[in-house]
């Protein structure tokens, strides 16, 4: 879809996914790396596949030349260093007025922290994401596989194409100044409106979900099973009620002690007003049932019964998931098996390009 779009990707890890997503949709992306840069890590290879690698030292002359011959230039200059001057928009636009320049930095190019340094850890901290993960009284944690770079790259791809749409209409390019901190805020979901509508700052709840009940009840999310954990929540609404009814039916089939579940009228179940005492009573019987299931049994049983809930997968579980195989999600390039293009367009998943 982006076959008419030429992109120069001069990014570090903060921006790799931006060019990958755009390349997946057909853009011709040239990835610039300095001579001698290591491109062997799985992260580099996974997020720079589908691009053409060119080794070139970045200086004012080379950046000017690259910018004059592309539609979109993506860069991740180190804040507070001379690198930001390399990607000065007025200078580059004087050579190519239609240029869309996308600059990704931890906090954006303006504001009091524009010069601050941050990696995944500090970005997740600054965006509030760490405050929402971990045990309630324990240390805030990040996802062990860095996420901030992906959020920033994905949002940068949105910004690049919004600016490209404007350019197609007017012929004028512009600067897209992406803040990683702000990009990660999107991951917080519905936590922010609690602050100024309810006057509370949501916080981490370990293996539980909070923020659903006006009575303050917390709902178990992760349940030990035979070979790991499953994710199940006593939801409300039509889908939640159906799920809960199906779960009880499943437990009956297995002759499991239902406890207070036996007398629960799910048509009357409303988690938004449930008390903790009520939730705890219902969850005790479910805990015993799940502890005897495997992740695969839960996945298949929940699917057959149209229940909400999934196992907690490892990358090995994901790699073996038949759903992904049937949809042709994986693509082999040489000896490497990659995540394929993220979307199916007009009934076909576009192919990744063989490395050149």
């Amino acid at each position, binding site marked *: 879809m982006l076959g008419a779009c030429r992109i120069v990707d001069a990014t570090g890890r903060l921006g790799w996914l931006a060019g990958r997503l755009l390349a997946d949709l057909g853009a011709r992306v040239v990835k610039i790396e300095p001579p001698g840069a290591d491109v062997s890590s*799985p992260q580099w290879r996974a997020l720079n596949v589908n691009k053409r690698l060119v080794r070139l030292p970045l200086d004012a002359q080379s950046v000017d030349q690259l910018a004059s011959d592309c539609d979109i230039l993506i860069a991740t200059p180190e804040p507070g260093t001379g690198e930001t001057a390399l990607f000065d928009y007025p200078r580059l636009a004087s050579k190519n007025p239609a240029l869309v320049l996308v600059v990704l930095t931890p906090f954006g190019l303006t504001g009091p922290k524009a010069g601050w340094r941050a990696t995944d850890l500090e970005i997740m901290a*600054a965006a509030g994401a760490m405050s929402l993960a971990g045990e309630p009284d324990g240390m*805030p944690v990040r996802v*062990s596989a860095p996420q901030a770079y992906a959020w920033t790259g994905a949002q940068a791809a949105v910004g690049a194409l919004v600016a490209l749409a404007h350019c197609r209409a*007017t012929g004028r390019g512009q600067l897209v100044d992406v803040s990683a901190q702000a990009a990660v805020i999107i991951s917080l979901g519905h936590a922010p409106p609690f602050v100024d509508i309810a006057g509370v700052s949501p916080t*981490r709840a370990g293996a539980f979900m909070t923020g659903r009940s006006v009575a303050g009840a917390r709902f178990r999310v992760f349940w030990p099973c035979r070979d790991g954990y499953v*994710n199940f929540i006593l939801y409300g609404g039509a889908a939640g009620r159906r799920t809960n009814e199906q779960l009880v039916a499943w437990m009956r089939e297995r002759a499991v002690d239902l406890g207070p579940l036996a007398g629960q009228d799910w048509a009357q179940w409303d988690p938004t007003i449930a008390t903790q005492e009520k939730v705890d009573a219902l969850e005790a019987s479910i805990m015993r049932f799940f502890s005897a299931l495997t992740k695969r049994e839960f996945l298949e049983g929940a699917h057959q019964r149209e229940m909400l809930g999934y196992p907690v997968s490892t990358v090995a579980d994901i790699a073996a998931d038949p759903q992904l195989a049937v949809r042709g999600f994986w693509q082999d390039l040489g000896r490497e098996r990659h995540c394929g293009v993220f979307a199916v367009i007009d009934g076909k998943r576009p192919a990744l390009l063989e490395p050149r």
Partner: protein
Amino acid sequence: MTRALQGVRIIEFGGYAAGPHIGKMLANFGATVVHVESRARPDGFRMQYPPYKDGKPGIDRGGCFAFFNDSKLGVTLDVKNPRGLELARRLAAGSDVLIENMRPGVIARIGLGYEALKKQNPRLIMLSTCNMGQTGPRADTPGFGSQLTALAGMCHLTGEPGGPPMLLYGPYIDFIASTVGAVAVLAALERRHQTGEGAYIDISQYESGLMFLAGELLEYHTTGKVAERAGNDDPDAMPHGAFACGGGGWLAVSCWSAAEFARFAQCIGRAGLRREPQAIEEALSSWLRERSADAAARALQAVRVHAHAVATVGDLFTDPQLAARAQWQRKVHPVIGEHSYCGPPFVLSETPGEVTRPAPTLGADNEAVFRNLLGLTAEEYAACEAAGAFA
């Protein structure tokens, strides 16, 4: 001021996060976005997720719905009513983009499938987003994003090595899918600009989320290594973690080279500190006892060390950096009152994004959309209303 997506018309069928958040992102740059609900089945975010105005659930009192639906028009249509379905078709015929996040096949059964709609509007771009995608053995699986985040591997990778997996608060993966969904819609608009062709885009929220673990998945496929949760550790940095401060907050700090560690040690008054976990923990603990996380981060950043306070969600509303970039934009909602909406995470120098209006109350823009946008006469509108089309 010219808006980047001025003139782009989008119609949304669906609810919760994964569909409507795409429309919100594009509405912030000038697209006209019509969010379609029905009175029988309003968007689930209106009544199933707090916070509510004054803590009381109500159809127009939900902050969660509001947060993801600013800058849009809101209408009600009963698509099981023949007049309602006809109006939905006419809206689709006049739109550039249709976004839906129902279970696979539902929108086609309603009579609004892509094959039917493209006959009347060949330039239409339609995006369907759901848990598993439109095809495959589990395509019909219902699901919410908070649970799908577990299937997609993120929860397994969050927490301490010996402890349970951790939740990432809400429907984390939905916002990955909505972000890449917006990328796909914009790419389809670019193709249509070049060729005139419409497009049908099938987004699996599961697959979208896996793009955020692409490196870990490639490593597993290549070497068999299964990525595990590791608290806050990183194999390439020391220190790399969150450390409690005397005032009750936490400091996130990391050092990625010997030179950076030397600056860190000097800054905390322990030049020559051994670069090993226990020594660092003791030295930092002592240094942080009398400091706030913000003050500690400022001191460390002054000597070019990676550091930031672990912000609470409340802190985000007083963060001077976010304020300087107008991250939070306040609008007066007719029921909720004045509250904050989230602006885009990127600033466009010529056509910046903007929260233009609060989220619509249920059906607030029926008349504006069906009279002004669709061109119904007053009599036609009244007849549709009398027939129950707007129920």
